[in-house]
């Protein structure tokens, strides 16, 4: 028996290998695998895996944080969307302005920022929004100035308020419309938009309230410029050449006043739909000393990184979107909660003097001042000058061809038959368009360039308010 025990003693130690071996021995795993020791991958693999994993993990963490932040702010305002709304009532509506970032061909970037980071909270809170974008530099300032002048004209009684063509039963009166605008709010995305907005505001409330058609004025100015004069005949009456919509300028009776060229009609017809006397009595035309309260402003911080030098910033932004989400959601939340404070601007004379030196104006006017350095070299007047020079150098040749063909002094060549060169009318229209564009760009850059102060007027101090961060005692 003891020999049996001795015999059977070593067997259990052979049979009871490690549990893994016992369990998987006959599963088909190569037996050499059971004897290997687990070890880390090589040094190079470790480097690669750790770098890749950390990058991916940071990206995933960032996007999850974004989602969490958005959900958090949405849940804070959701209760507003569940309130009932009567069938004839309208929801709260804000107007969003986004100007073109100087140097960026895409004018929509400011509004893209709004749509991506601010709009989701508005949607969660059932706040309606209307987005207005400035296609070119200075467009927004012009638009706001025109709106203010229209408002002044309506208030002065010079112009009747616009009526919709179909009389609907529930049309709000002018007071109701204004009240609704006041309750709504204005959103300005970025410092460049603030500058354009304030410039338009100041122009609208300071200039005369005359209806001004910029294209018309420019057309008249260009007509007397002498660029389209004949080279051989010394004196050409500009009025004769100006008003003719036909290439043969001397055959027909000259029109007395400058008639808009037919090619310009479509773009200016909205403003020409009704004719109003352009001379407003002087006692009405003085700029008012107090400005009616404007809807509260929401200043949304926004910086657009463009250019090769900004690629590191772009990469940082790609991996850190949660900061933008937080900024946008905070801004939206403060608008929804409607804490309002007066616009803080520099008042004392010493501060105004300082501001002339380094562009700092103090208070809210310094909103996002560092962002200006990002578009510092975006536009230089010299590039317009160059474009102008090339255009005007090439113009007389084109003009001569057009005139020669129109008068029939020269038969068209074969290429000219198949691709007719532009006629004189088309050349004029093209010149008008280009000049509008160049002047608009120059004026826009003047408004927005770094170092240019935000336009401010004492009357604004009472009329402007800003949405502030909601206080801690706000229950959502």
């Amino acid at each position, binding site marked *: 028996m003891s020999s049996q025990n001795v015999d059977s003693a070593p067997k259990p130690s052979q049979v009871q290998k490690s549990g893994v071996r016992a369990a998987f021995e006959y599963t088909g795993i190569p037996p050499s695998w059971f004897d290997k020791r687990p070890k880390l991958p090589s040094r190079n693999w470790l480097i690669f895996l750790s770098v890749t994993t950390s990058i991916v993990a940071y990206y995933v963490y960032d996007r999850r944080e974004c989602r969490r932040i958005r959900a958090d702010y949405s849940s804070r305002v959701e209760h*507003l969307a*569940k309130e*009932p709304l*009567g*069938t004839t009532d309208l929801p709260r509506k804000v107007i969003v302005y986004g100007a073109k970032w100087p140097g960026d061909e895409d004018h929509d970037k400011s509004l893209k920022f709004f749509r991506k980071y601010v709009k989701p909270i508005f949607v969660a809170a*059932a706040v309606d929004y209307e987005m207005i974008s400035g296609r070119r530099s200075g467009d927004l300032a012009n638009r706001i100035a025109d709106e203010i002048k229209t408002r002044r004209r309506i208030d002065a009684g010079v112009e009747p308020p616009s009526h919709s063509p179909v009389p609907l039963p529930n049309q709000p009166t002018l007071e109701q419309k204004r009240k609704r605008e006041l309750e709504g709010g204005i959103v300005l995305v970025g410092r460049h938009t603030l500058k354009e907005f304030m410039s338009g505001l100041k122009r609208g409330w300071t200039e005369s309230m005359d209806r001004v058609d910029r294209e018309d004025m420019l057309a008249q100015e260009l007509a007397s410029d002498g660029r389209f004069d004949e080279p051989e005949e010394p004196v050409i009456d500009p009025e004769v050449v100006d008003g003719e919509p036909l290439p043969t300028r001397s055959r027909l009776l000259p029109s007395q006043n400058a008639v808009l060229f037919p090619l310009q009609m479509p773009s200016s017809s909205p403003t020409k739909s009704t004719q109003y006397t352009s001379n407003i009595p002087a006692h009405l035309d003085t700029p008012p000393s107090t400005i009616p309260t404007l809807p509260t402003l929401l200043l949304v911080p926004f910086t657009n990184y463009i250019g090769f030098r900004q690629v590191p910033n772009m990469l940082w932004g790609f991996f850190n979107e949660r900061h933008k989400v937080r900024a946008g959601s905070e801004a939206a939340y403060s608008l929804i909660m409607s804490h309002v404070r007066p616009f803080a601007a520099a008042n004392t004379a010493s501060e105004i003097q300082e501001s002339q030196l380094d562009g700092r104006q103090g208070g809210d006017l310094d909103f996002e001042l560092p962002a200006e350095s990002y578009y510092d070299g975006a536009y230089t007047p010299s590039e317009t000058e160059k474009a102008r020079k090339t255009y005007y150098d090439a113009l007389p040749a084109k003009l001569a061809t057009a005139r020669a063909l129109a008068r029939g002094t020269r038969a068209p060549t074969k290429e000219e038959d198949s691709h007719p060169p532009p006629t004189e009318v088309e050349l004029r229209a093209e010149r008008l368009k280009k000049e509008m564009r160049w002047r608009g760009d120059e004026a826009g850059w003047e408004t927005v360039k770094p170092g240019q102060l935000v336009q401010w007027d004492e009357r604004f101090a009472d009329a402007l308010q800003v949405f502030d961060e909601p206080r801690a005692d706000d229950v959502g």
Partner: protein
Amino acid sequence: MSFLGRGGPSPAGGVNHERIEMAINEIDMVSDVFNRIVSSCHTKCISPRYAEGDLNKGESVCIDRCVAKFFEVNKKVGEKMQSAGASA
């Protein structure tokens, strides 16, 4: 029940019928567009759980934007089809 027009319709001119046809077609189209808008925006914007009879603000804003977008798209598609029909 009075049977109007029992004595037969009195045509004031053959053009009337065309105009009536056109009016009928226009009403058909308009009501078709209206029905589409109602069904489409209802499915998109109004949740199936009714908490109270009135629309709430979220639904109102959603419906406003849905109808506005529908009309925009309708107009654009109409223009495209007109230009395609004119060129083809």
